[in-house]
């Protein structure tokens, strides 16, 4: 038990810390795919480099001391993320660009990831070179980390409390496993530090928001919710972005009335997200309206009830409002209800997760639930005065996608564009809308005859419509979610520096080049490596390919899964744990192979190919929900087997335990960096998997055409 525990703890600690660090980053930096990709890639890079370095240089030999060092460093890493606004001289509420993300991700992942990578090698040393056993134990630890973090966050409503409990428990168990008196004092020190860290969670959030007042904070499985007060102005933030601010009648009025005035008699209304903050109040001004309000996170309603006062509580409790706690898309997939108006009141499509509500498939689903003449409406941030190139591309993709489903699409100009879609004619005639408001005696503050005249002036509408129709728009699909890439590209132009042009550059590169060029470069690399005829290359290269393949396939599968089945939040931990379980089983099974050979390696590589081809065939179909789990499990089994076999072949010649692990993670680093942020949105899921299939074909041919090596003793 004591001998095996540290390797298990390593997997548990590394995965927990990775999740918690990502959560903290998401809470304070823009949590789009680009930034998350950078953070994940930095993590994998440094863990990989830590492993590679430790295999060569014996900087640390004591497992428990290094584990304690990571535990000491982790609170500082989280604190640094939280206080990064002071480091970069940012205001509370100021958005953060790409450069700070890169600096912070690479810096902090070095601090935590590098020693964790080294710990893998130290654990192999401790297990007398039995790398498979360490890999098995580490995978087993990782299996438990996701559910443990989820459970602790739910119980404590605090990421930092979760971090303290996980790190403290690991420190104690590690100390017990090592059983050295000298470590006890350090462990006690770590526990005291972690307790202090837990205690400063709230004060540090207060300091972050100062001089604004933090009323409450709550970590849920979806992110960090905070209620901020500036005098009587109350705002609910999710991961540092406002969900709503009260009072803000302009936002609430325009979200509701442009759509509702198309059919003021509409009775069946579906509101997806964003009910509190005035929206429900505006909807309830229509006497016949019955509202189904679907909200993903119950905590949002709970906090709104607690802090927003009597009027908002009254709206939430109105007999005409039915609140449903569910993912909006899943709700629409499951319900048989028909609606006359569907209002999408969600954040803009800045992530793959939110983008699911702006795709061709979602619009078709909404159309299915709208009766004849029903209206779908949603707002997105825009510009009233000028539509620049990036904004034009982003808005055009939404407009084009909507136009492919609905016969009528109109867009209200303004600093927020209100998209309206229907099978029946829609009006943006300011006089007509003013008359309808007057006949309903609709009490509004911001929308009035003159503001409508200005906002819906023919010059403005024509300018916007020309912009929307004259770009070369891209269709936003579940399987090629381009709008969130275009949104990230728009986001990046707000900041100065070369980062602003990078996404624009990629958006102009033809997809064939985007995927083909890396493959050609890889082919050239294989030819060079083939000429070298070094055995270590042939035993270890499959690891790098495996690292890249598994991470790309995982990301593709997660995006595919959430597009098809919706509720990713509840399933993500389970999906990732299934993969980890596969790794564990794969490495366990391969210990039964007495004498691994290149034939085994080629067989596993062929297994990868077969699985990828099957996955590729499954992408266009809607198959039972269990299938993604099976794919991930088999992917894990193949990954675990390949890791064990490849390492065992390599270690016959050299006792460098870190190299294989390091290459696996560096392959993953490449995949993490570009897959979700660039490749999937621009090329689509299918073509990304096609490329990975080609990559694996090359890898397999490389293996099959290897020179003859004499294998050393097992």
């Amino acid at each position, binding site marked *: 038990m004591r001998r095996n525990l540290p390797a298990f703890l390593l997997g548990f600690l590394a995965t927990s810390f990775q999740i918690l660090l990502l959560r903290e980053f998401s809470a304070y930096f823009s949590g789009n795919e680009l930034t998350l990709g950078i953070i994940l890639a930095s993590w994998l890079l440094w863990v990989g480099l830590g492993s590679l370095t430790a295999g060569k240089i014996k900087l640390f030999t004591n497992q428990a001391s290094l584990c304690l060092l990571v535990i000491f460093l982790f609170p500082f890493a989280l604190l640094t993320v939280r206080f990064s606004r002071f480091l970069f001289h940012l205001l509370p509420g100021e*958005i953060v660009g790409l450069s700070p993300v890169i600096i912070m991700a690479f810096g902090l992942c070095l601090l935590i990831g590098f020693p964790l990578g080294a710990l893998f090698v130290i654990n192999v040393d401790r297990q007398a070179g039995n790398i498979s056993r360490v890999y098995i134990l580490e995978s087993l630890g990782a299996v438990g980390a996701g559910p443990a973090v989820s459970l602790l966050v739910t119980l404590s409503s605090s990421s930092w409390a979760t971090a303290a409990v996980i790190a403290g428990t690991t420190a104690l168990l590690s100390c017990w496993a090592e059983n050295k008196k000298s470590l006890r004092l350090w462990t006690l020190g770590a526990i005291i530090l972690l307790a202090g860290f837990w205690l400063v969670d709230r004060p540090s959030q207060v300091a972050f928001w100062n001089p604004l007042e933090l009323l409450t904070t709550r970590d849920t499985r979806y992110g960090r919710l905070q209620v901020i007060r500036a005098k009587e102005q109350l705002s609910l933030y999710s991961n540092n972005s406002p969900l709503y601010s009260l009072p803000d009648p302009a936002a609430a009025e325009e979200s509701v009335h442009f759509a509702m005035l198309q059919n003021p008699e509409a009775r069946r209304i579906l509101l997806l997200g964003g009910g509190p903050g005035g929206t429900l109040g505006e909807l309830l001004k229509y006497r016949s309206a019955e509202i189904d309000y679907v909200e993903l996170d119950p905590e949002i309603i709970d906090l709104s009830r607690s802090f927003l006062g009597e009027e908002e509580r009254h709206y939430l409790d109105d007999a005409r409002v039915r609140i449903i706690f569910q993912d909006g898309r899943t709700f629409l997939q499951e319900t048989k209800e028909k609606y006359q108006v569907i209002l999408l009141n969600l954040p803009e499509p800045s992530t793959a997760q939110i983008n699911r509500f702006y795709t061709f498939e979602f619009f078709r689903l909404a159309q299915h639930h709208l009766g004849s003449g029903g209206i779908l409406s949603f707002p997105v941030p825009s510009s009233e*005065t000028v539509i620049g190139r990036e904004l034009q591309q982003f808005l055009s993709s939404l407009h084009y996608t909507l136009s492919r489903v609905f016969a009528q699409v109109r867009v209200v100009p303004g600093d927020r564009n209100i998209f309206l879609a229907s099978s029946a004619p829609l009006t943006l005639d300011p006089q007509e809308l003013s008359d309808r408001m007057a006949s309903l005696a609709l009490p509004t503050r911001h929308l009035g005859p*003159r503001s409508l005249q*200005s906002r819906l002036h023919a010059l403005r509408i024509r300018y916007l419509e020309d912009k929307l129709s004259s770009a070369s728009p891209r269709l936003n699909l579940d399987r090629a979610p381009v709008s969130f890439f275009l949104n990230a590209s728009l986001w990046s132009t707000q900041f100065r520096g070369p980062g602003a*042009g990078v996404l624009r*550059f990629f958006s102009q590169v033809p997809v064939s080049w985007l995927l083909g060029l890396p493959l050609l470069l890889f082919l050239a690399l294989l030819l060079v490596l083939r000429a070298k005829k070094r055995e270590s290359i042939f035993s270890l290269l499959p690891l790098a390919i495996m690292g890249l393949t598994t991470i790309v396939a995982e990301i593709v599968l997660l995006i595919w899964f959430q597009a098809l089945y919706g509720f990713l939040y509840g399933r993500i931990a389970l999906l990732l744990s299934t993969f980890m379980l596969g790794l564990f089983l794969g490495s366990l099974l391969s210990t039964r192979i007495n004498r691994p050979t290149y034939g085994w390696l080629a067989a596993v590589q062929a297994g990868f190919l077969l699985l990828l081809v099957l996955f590729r065939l499954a992408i266009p179909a809607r198959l039972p929900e269990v299938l993604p789990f099976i794919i991930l499990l088999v992917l894990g089994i193949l990954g675990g087997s390949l890791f064990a076999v490849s390492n065992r072949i390599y270690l016959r010649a050299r006792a460098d335990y870190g190299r294989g692990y390091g290459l696996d993670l560096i392959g993953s680093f490449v995949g993490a960096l570009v897959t979700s942020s660039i490749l999937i949105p621009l090329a689509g899921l299918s073509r990304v998997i096609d490329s990975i299939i080609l990559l694996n074909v090359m890898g397999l041919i490389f293996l099959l055409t290897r020179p003859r090596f004499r294998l050393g003793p097992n």
Partner: protein
Amino acid sequence: MKRRRFCETLAGTGLLLGTGAVGALGRVMAFEETANLSHAEARYYKKHPDREIECLLCPRLCKLGDKERGYCGVRQNDGGTYYTLVYGKACSANVDPIEKKPFFHFLPGTEAFSIAAAGCNVNCKFCQNWQISQVRPEQVPHFDLPPVEVAAAAQRNKCRSIAYTYTEPTVFFEYMYDSAVEARKKGLKNCVVTAGHIQPEPLLDLLEVVDAVKIDLKSFRQDFYKEYVRGELQPVLDSIRIVSQSKVWLEIVYLVIPTLNDDEKDIRSMCRWMAKEIGRDIPLHFTRFHPMYLVKNLPPTPISTLESLHDIAIGEGIHYVYVGNVPGHGAENTFCPRCGKVVIERFGMQVKAVAMNEGTCGFCQSPIPGIWA
């Protein structure tokens, strides 16, 4: 060196691709879009030896070598001659209610033909129009709209005035000036919406051809200007003083950003300065901030903050103090400072009732300063 070349390549690629896109767009725009920049000689600069020049338009006083551009990004030294790149190149043209600028004492209830060209000489973190103000003109789709056409378009759209707005009109000074001259020929009025970051000489010249100026006073503290605006306070105060001493109508807008520039002591000092230096009759608008650009995650300004600042200004003797961006608020109305009655009733951009007689209060006949017809 390599990195620089990479950046240049990226910028160049973006530029070339963008140029193609703009060309394709031109055919269907309400105004014809073009990829060309202007090459009109700028005014207000001094030539130095070795093809260097010194820009005298704004307080930055940029000293530029050959082929260099000023801080604004829209004025370039080309062989020792200084050129404006945005003359006749509008990037935005709309019809707005004059109350949207906001002007409350200038042709109330009328529309202003509003134009902008790219660029700005300050860099506010809360800019509403960052897509056109914080970029180079090559990055912004724009169209040919020479001064004569500006005036004609304003007439076509039944506007009483032309507003030079959205970005900082100082940086397209020559275009604004010549458009104003053309507008006057057609009997239109001109109003300028500016941050006031301009040198006295061009400002005095401009005041000869325009009718109203709205100056955004962003704070009464130099450190705020330095940190959040990347500009200087004193030149703005000088501009306010110069306009107030001219025949041109002046209004001041103070965008209140929660926690950043809402200190009551500062506002009191500002009002005292106004009362002493420019008089009590210059309208002062405290407008509500809505999250924008880099500070888009800040909450909007609490209305009670606006009300407190409004009360401070009234207490300091400023006659016309308004609360903006809060439709339906009582402080949107114009009150006669003598009899205290409402002479112009507003609801948002809507002018609901006017109780005035040729520039005087309809109740007590006290003059209400402004341009009313």
